[in-house]
C-alpha cells in the first residue's frame, strides 16, 4: 500500500499543531506476554498498561502469581525473577495445550491458552553470498514439507553470534545478533507490512498447503559466511501469535496514515492485554572453526618486520576473510599478510602496532594469543 500513498500524497504539505483532546483512561490493567516453545523453559512477563500520553516506561509487576497448566493437569506456579519476569525450569511439549493465569490482589486475574504446534519439516537450505561493490548480497532458500492437515503459520528468521576481542578485559566475547530478512515474493511481502526485522518474516501456507515448498529470502548487507556462527530457523507459530505479530505490523503500518482506520492488535488475554503464544522450530546451525594461536616466530620485533604466527584452523579456503591486529584498538586495517599456509601466517608488523596480544579473526571467529608480542621502537 505504501506505494499508493507515495503517489497519492504528492500534494501533501503538512503542518502541525498541538491540540487538547480529553481521552479518558480506565486502567491500569494487567498485561501478560509469554511465548513458549519446546526448546526453552517457561518465561512470562507481567506489566501494567499506561495512559496514552503518560511518558513513564511500563510498570512491571513482581508481586503477582503466574501459573501454567497443561490441560487436565495441575497448575504449576512460576517463580518471580525480577523486572516483571516469571520463570520455571519446565518446558512445554509440541501438540499439547496449555493455560496461563496471572493473579494480582490489586489488578485482578487474567488468563489465556494455546496449543504448541509441531515443527515444520525442514528438508534443505541454501545460502548464496557474494560481495559486490563492498556490499554483501546474500540469499537464503529454505525447502520444507508443509503439513496438509493443518493451517500453518510460519516465521523464518536468522540469528547469529558475533565474536570480538574486548581490550578492556583482554578476552574474546560473543554477542547475539539478528539478520534482517526480506523477500521478493509478493505474497510474503504483503504479510509483512510494518513488521520489525528481528521478528523474521511471516508467511502462511495458502499457496502451498500440503506441498513441498521453497521460500526465498534476502539478507542483503549481511555476510553469514563471515560470522562466527549463524542459525536459520523455520518456526511454526500458533494462529494467535501469528495474528499478534501480523496486527502489530498492521498497527505500525496504519499509524501515521491519515486514511487508515486504526488497527487494534490481536489480543488473546482474557480481561487483560498481551499475548500468550507458542512456536516450534526446526533449525540449521552453522559454525566456523575457531582458530588457535600456538606460537610466533619471534616474541618481539620492529614495525615493518615480518613475523610468522603458528596455530590451527588457519586455512579453510582461499577466500577466507582474515583480519590480524597487534593490540590495535585503533587499527582500521588488518596487518599485511605476506604468506599463508596450513598452520602458519606470515605478516608484516604494522606501523601503528603496540605491544600486546595478537588477535586473529578468521571468518568471524576470533582468537587472541596467550602471550604478548613486544613491539620494539
Amino acid at each position: 500500500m505504501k506505494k499508493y500513498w507515495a503517489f497519492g500524497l504528492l500534494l501533501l504539505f503538512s503542518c502541525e499543531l498541538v491540540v487538547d483532546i480529553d481521552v479518558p483512561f480506565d486502567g491500569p490493567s494487567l498485561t501478560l506476554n509469554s511465548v513458549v516453545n519446546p526448546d526453552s523453559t517457561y518465561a512470562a512477563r507481567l506489566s501494567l498498561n499506561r495512559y496514552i500520553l503518560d511518558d513513564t516506561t511500563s510498570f512491571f509487576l513482581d508481586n503477582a502469581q503466574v501459573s501454567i497448566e497443561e490441560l487436565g493437569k495441575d497448575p504449576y506456579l512460576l517463580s518471580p525473577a525480577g523486572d516483571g519476569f516469571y520463570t520455571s525450569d519446565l518446558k512445554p511439549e509440541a501438540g499439547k495445550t496449555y493455560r496461563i493465569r496471572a493473579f494480582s490482589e490489586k489488578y485482578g486475574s487474567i488468563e489465556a491458552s494455546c496449543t504448541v504446534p509441531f515443527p515444520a519439516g525442514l528438508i534443505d537450505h541454501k545460502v548464496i553470498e557474494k560481495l559486490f561493490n563492498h556490499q554483501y548480497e546474500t540469499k537464503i532458500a529454505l525447502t520444507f514439507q508443509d503439513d496438509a492437515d493443518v493451517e500453518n503459520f510460519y516465521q523464518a528468521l536468522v540469528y547469529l553470534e558475533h565474536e570480538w576481542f574486548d581490550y578492556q578485559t583482554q578476552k574474546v566475547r560473543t554477542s547475539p545478533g539478528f539478520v534482517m530478512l526480506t523477500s521478493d515474493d509478493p505474497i510474503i511481502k504483503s504479510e509483512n507490512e510494518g513488521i520489525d526485522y528481528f521478528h523474521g518474516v511471516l508467511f502462511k501456507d495458502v499457496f502451498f498447503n500440503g506441498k513441498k515448498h521453497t521460500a526465498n529470502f534476502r539478507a542483503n548487507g549481511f555476510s553469514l559466511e563471515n560470522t562466527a556462527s549463524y542459525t536459520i530457523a523455520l518456526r511454526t507459530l500458533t494462529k494467535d501469535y501469528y495474528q499478534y505479530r501480523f496486527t502489530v505490523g498492521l498497527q505500525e503500518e496504519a499509524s501515521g496514515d491519515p486514511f487508515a482506520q486504526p488497527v487494534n492488535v490481536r489480543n488473546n488475554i482474557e480481561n487483560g492485554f498481551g499475548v500468550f503464544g507458542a512456536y516450534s522450530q526446526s533449525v540449521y546451525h552453522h559454525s566456523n572453526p575457531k582458530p588457535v594461536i600456538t606460537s610466533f616466530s619471534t616474541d618481539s620485533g620492529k614495525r615493518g618486520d615480518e613475523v610468522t604466527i603458528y596455530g590451527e584452523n588457519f586455512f579453510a579456503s582461499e577466500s577466507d576473510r582474515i583480519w590480524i591486529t597487534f593490540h590495535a584498538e585503533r587499527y582500521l586495517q588488518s596487518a599485511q599478510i605476506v604468506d599463508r599456509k596450513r598452520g602458519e601466517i606470515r605478516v608484516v608488523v604494522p606501523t601503528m602496532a603496540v605491544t600486546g596480544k595478537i588477535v586473529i579473526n578468521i571468518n568471524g571467529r576470533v582468537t587472541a594469543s596467550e602471550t604478548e608480542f613486544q613491539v620494539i621502537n
Partner: protein
Amino acid sequence: MKHVFLALLLIPFFVSAQRATVSGIITQKGSGETLIGASVYNSKTKQGTTSNHYGFYSITLPRDSFNLTFSYVGYKSAHVGFRLHNDTTINLALEDAGMLQEVEVTASPEEEIQHSTRMGTIDVPVAQIKALPALLGEIDVFKVLQLLPGVQSGAEGSSGLYVRGGGPDQNLILLDGVPVYNASHLFGFISVFNADAINHVELIKGGFPARYGGRLSSVIDITMKEGNQEKISCEGSIGLISSRLTVEGPIVKNKSSFIVSARRTYLDVLTRPIIKKVTKGEEAAWYYFYDLNAKVNYHLNERNRVFLSTYTGDDKAFARSRYKSENEIEQWVGTDEFDLKWGNFTAAARWNHIFTSRLFSNVTATYSRYRLSVGAESREVYTTPDTSQVIYYFTDYTSGIRDFGLKVDFDFIPAPSHYIRFGGQAVAHLFTPGVLAYKSENTGHTTMGSPDLHSKEFSVYAEDDIALDRKLKVNAGLHASAFVTDNNFYYSLQPRISTRYLLNNDLSLKASYARMTQYIHLLTNVGIGLPTDLWVPSTDQIKPEESFIASLGTALNFKSAFEISVEAYYKSMEKLIEYKEGANYLNIEEDWQTKVESGKGESYGSELFIQKKKGKVSGWVGYTLSWTNRTFQNINEGKTFPFRYDRRHDVEVALSYKWKPNRDLSMTWVYGTGAAISLPQSAYTEYIGSPWGDGDQSFIEYYGGRNSYRMRAYHRLDIGYTSTKKKRWGERSWNLSLYNAYNRKNPFFVDNARDEKGHKKFIQYSLFPLIPSAACRFKF
C-alpha cells in the same frame, strides 16, 4: 411488466374532445443544446409543466386562446399565444441571457420550489459550477455538490460524497443514465466528470421519485451535452494539473451533432525524460489520468431521435527499477516493476420516440465497466560460467464490475394535473471480486480469490405527479426490484410518496417518504474512493442493504428571488457492510464474504437552504444540523458509534458576484464540526522475544471506542475571480483561485507524538495551506 399495465389501467383519462395538446422540445438558441427542466406555463389556466431530460414537454389545454410562457433560469423568456384547435408541436429555442443583464429575466411561477412536490432535490447550473473557486484550478462537479447542505466531503481535498450520513457507495451516479462505479481520479482527489462536457447536474438526497432505485442515499444524475447543432465550436482550458479540450458541432446542420471532450494530466510527460536521464534509465515512474467523453445524436424526424454517448477514463501509475551487479565471474541482473491502473468505461445508446404529443418514450441500452489491476513483477537472473538461475515472481490483482443494461422509460402527460412516468430496467452484472494471479519459479501459475459472480437486477416503476387541487399535489409511485445471484433471489417493493400543500402562492409544506434497496455493496478500507474499493453483490450470506427516509419540510419563494427550503429528515439504514477490523483487500485467501461485518446506521437532522439563481449576485447559503451513527455487532463491541463524517453543524456559503458581464468574483465558505476519529487510550508492552531480553520497550496502542473523539472544527474560505475577454478569434478568460484564503490550519489527521519540548501530546496535521492557482480558458 405486470405493474406497468396495472399502472396504465389506473390512469384516469382526462383527455376530452374539448382539449388539445401542445408539445415539443425546448433548446438553447445558437447551439441547439437541450434545456432540461425549462418551464412552460399557461397564464390563463395557471397551469404548467417542465421539460424532461430530453427537453421534451407536453401540456394539454382547453381548445381556446392561450398564452404560453417558456422560461429557463438565466435565459430570456418567450411568449407564444394563439388559438388552439388541434394538437400542436412547438419546438422552441430560448436565448441565453448571460450577456444581457438589462433584460429582465422572468421565470414562470410553476416550477418554483414551493410548487414542486420534490424534496431534497437540488439543481446546480453548470455555469455556476464553473464560476466557483476551484482547488488548483480543477473545476470539479463533485466538489461543488459537497457545498450543498446534507452533503459531506470526507477527507480534505477528496471528491467523495457522503449524503445524509450515507457512504460514497450509496450514491447512484448516472452519466447519461449509465451508472459510473468509481467516480474518482488521482486517488479520490478529483472526480471523473469533465464540466465542459456536462449540460445538467441534479442531486437527489431524499424523497426519491419511483423512477430511481438501487442505492440508498442519493442520486446524482448527470446529463452530457449533445453538441452544438448550428456551428463548430471549441472550448478548453490549460490548468496546473490538467488541460481540457472540447469540440462540438453539427454533423448535418440541425439534424445531428457531436461533442468530444478530453482531459489529461501532463506532469508525467514533463518528468519522464528527467527521471530517465537522472537515473541513467534504471528507474522509471509516472502517473497520469485522462478522460474522454463523446456523444453524437441524430434527429431521425420530428418524433424520433437517437443518441450514442460514451465515457472512458483511466488512471495509470507505473514504477520500474533495474539493477545489475557483477564481478569477474558472476552477474546478477534484476528488474522490479509495479503498475496500477483503474478506470471506467461507459456507453449508452438511446432512442427517444414521441408516440403522441402526450406520450414520450426513451429506450436506453447501457454498458458500464470498472476495472482495477495492480501488478508487480520481479525477475532476477544469476549467472556464473557454469550455471544460470532465475528467481521470478509475478502477481496481478484484478477486481471489477461489468454491467449490461436495458432501460425503457415512458413519460405520459394526459392532462396538466397528471405527469405519469413508468418503465422498467434489466441489468446483468458481472462481479470480479478480487482475483490474484500468482506465479513464481517454484509454484508455477496459481490463481486465487473469489470466483466471478453473475447477477441479474430487474426493476419496474410507475409514478404519477398528481395535482389533486390547486393546493395539494402528490407524487405517488412504486419501485419494485429483484436481484438474482446464483440461487439467491431477493426482491423488494419500495413505495415512494411526496406531497406538497400550498399555504399561499409563495409558501408550501412538503412531506415525503421513500424506501430504498441496494443490492450491490462496496467494500472499502478507507472510504475515500480508492481504486482498491471492491464492488460485490448480495449473496446468501450478505443481504441487500435497505433504508427508508422520511422528510418534512417547507419551501418559500421570497420575492421571486430567493428560494428558501427547510427540511427535517430521518433516515434508517439496515444491513450495511464493512470490513472486519484488520481485514484488508489483500488477504485474498479468505473469501470476501468472511471478511465482512453487517450492521445498521441512522441519520437524522435538519437542513436549511437559501438559493438565489439569478441576478448580479447569485448562489446559496446552507446550514445542516445532523446526527449520524453506525452499529455493528462485532465492531466497537457492538456499541453504537458515530459515523466518521458525522457533523453536528455544517454551514456552506457559495456566492458569485457578476458586476460586469465579463467580470465574475466568487467565494465559498464552509464550516463543519470536526470529524469523528479514533484515538488510542492506553499503551501496553509489546512482546519482543529478542535474545537481549525486552530491554528497550516497544508499546502497542489500544484504541477504545471507535470514532469517539472529535477533531477541531473545519472552516475555509475560497475566492475565485474570472475575467473574460472577447478576442478576434473567440473568447478567452482567466480564472484565478485562492484556496483556503485565510490560511486556516484545518485538521486532516490527529496523531499522538512529542511536541517541541518532548512531551507526549495529541498533534494535529493539516493538509492544504493557502494555495493560489490560475487557469486559462478559451472558447471559439
